[in-house]
């Protein structure tokens, strides 16, 4: 595609250590992602599931779930809606691929510029997130492969736990990524936050 390489919404954020100088800081990464919203058309559930198996080798995840294939992760966001995410390579490639695979079954909208993912990991990640997140993040209630949309610091955030380190992928609207990260740095200041 010919579109210019976009600037990451958090490109101006200072890298390095923020907050306390503890031995086990929280780690924040700011990956460039392709994010595509898929909205199911009425009555197309079975056809859509078959198309997703054929195109991505996975079933659409159920409520509160996310599944990762070799390159693409699918996250349930609301009834009949999923987000597909992948590392950003060619601008719009994932959206084009999804639009072709799901033609007639689902509406596809490229959200790569509209949403930004912040990856938070570290042993204190649950405690830091819990300062603003009302979800029960205890391993009994949440865990790897779980995803939920909830307001954090009054900003709508998709929380997706990808491993038991724990690592959380926090996806917010790009225009709110900077205030959200600012909140995260405040919430994690007692542990220290290392931005890669």
């Amino acid at each position, binding site marked *: 595609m010919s579109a210019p390489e976009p600037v990451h919404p958090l490109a101006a954020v200072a890298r390095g250590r923020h907050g306390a100088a503890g031995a086990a800081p929280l780690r924040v990464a700011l990956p460039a992602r392709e994010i595509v919203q898929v909205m199911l058309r009425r009555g197309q559930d079975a056809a859509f599931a078959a198309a997703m198996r054929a195109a991505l080798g996975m079933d659409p995840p159920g*409520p509160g779930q996310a599944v990762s294939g070799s390159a693409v992760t699918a996250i349930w*966001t609301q*009834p009949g809606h999923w987000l597909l995410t992948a590392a950003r390579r060619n601008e719009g490639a994932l959206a084009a691929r999804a639009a072709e695979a799901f033609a007639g079954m689902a509406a596809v909208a490229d959200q790569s510029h509209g949403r930004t993912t912040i990856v938070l990991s570290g042993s204190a990640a649950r405690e830091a997130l819990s300062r603003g997140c009302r979800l029960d993040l205890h391993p009994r209630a949440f865990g790897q492969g779980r995803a*939920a*949309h*909830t*307001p954090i610091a009054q900003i*709508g955030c998709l929380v997706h736990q990808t491993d038991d380190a724990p690592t959380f992928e926090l996806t917010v609207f790009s225009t709110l990524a900077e205030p959200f990260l600012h909140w995260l740095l405040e919430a994690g200041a007692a542990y220290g936050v290392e931005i890669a």
Partner: protein
Amino acid sequence: MLRITCPHCGARDELEFSYRGDATVTRPGPDADAGAFHDYLYLRRNPRGWQVEWWQHNGGCRAFLKVLRHTVTHEVRAVAAATETLEVPGA
């Protein structure tokens, strides 16, 4: 703070939801007179007891839900999808 068990997302805080009023109000037919539309638009029962209400889970799955809530104790007894019917218990 109410805890509302969304059929899609599980138990969440009231803060994630917005209240959208009485869910038992039905729109009159197109031939109804102005009085019927006046009542539909402005008159609410305001019961002391159980009420079926619309709540939208706009901080989560964005679905409209029917919630059976007691207006005095705030007990939430049932939550259902918008297309389902909730019965109001007697007394």
